[in-house]
């Protein structure tokens, strides 16, 4: 029991750390970088961002997403005698709220590795692409990133379901 609690505590702690890195970078991309790149493109300084900042930020972004999901999965596995993971993903009581959060997080993780990363590879030149393909990839990556920003709002609401949510929202 003590080992299980220690694993759960460690997983929860790391889930928060990696989650803050993932969603923090997601918000950086959407709230800061999109507007900054627009201005930087206008005065010819965009290369500094796309060459030096973006690849590093994307590396931490996509791996933080994986680590966040894994730590969340471990945390769920330590709950309800090992049934928490299945109960959350199948919306069984009392895991309906966290189940919604878990599914949203999973969709966001898939979004990161498929739509965002695969298209950003074309934008930053890892995958060869024509100018037209780059423009299309930039648009798809932008919309996928915005979709994740949108989904992060309900995801964090349901992930944060705890004592306060119990009293305020009955979750």
């Amino acid at each position, binding site marked *: 029991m003590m080992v299980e609690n220690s694993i759960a505590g460690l997983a929860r702690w790391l889930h928060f750390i990696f989650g803050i890195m993932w969603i923090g970078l997601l918000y950086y991309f*959407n*709230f800061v970088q999109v507007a900054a790149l627009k201005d930087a493109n206008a005065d010819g300084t965009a290369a500094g961002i796309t060459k030096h900042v973006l690849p590093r930020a994307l590396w931490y972004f996509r791996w933080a997403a994986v680590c966040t999901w894994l730590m969340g999965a471990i945390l769920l596995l330590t709950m309800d005698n090992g049934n928490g993971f299945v109960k959350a993903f199948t*919306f069984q*009581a009392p895991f*309906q*709220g966290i189940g*919604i959060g878990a599914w949203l997080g999973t969709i966001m993780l898939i979004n990161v590795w498929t739509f965002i990363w695969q298209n950003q590879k074309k934008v930053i030149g890892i995958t060869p692409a024509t100018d037209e393909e780059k*423009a*299309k990839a930039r*648009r798809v990556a932008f*919309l996928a990133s*915005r*979709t994740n*920003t*949108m*989904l*992060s*709002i*309900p995801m964090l*609401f*349901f992930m944060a379901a705890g004592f306060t949510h119990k009293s305020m*929202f*009955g*979750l």
Partner: protein
Amino acid sequence: VQPDAWVADRGNYPWPREGVFGARRLLVPGSRGATMKNPLDSLMGTVISGLVITLVLYVIVKVTEGAAT
């Protein structure tokens, strides 16, 4: 109006047209060329969409919880 004339004159009809990058955009009936904007193109639209989805999912969870008990 004959079908051929529809094609020739389709710019005046609120039918789906080719948008940026070949994506089809839905025209608002009666708006004569005005296209529906994607809420994800603005930060405000993104945040509002997220809040709406939160509310919808919250109601779904509460309803299913109520039905289960």
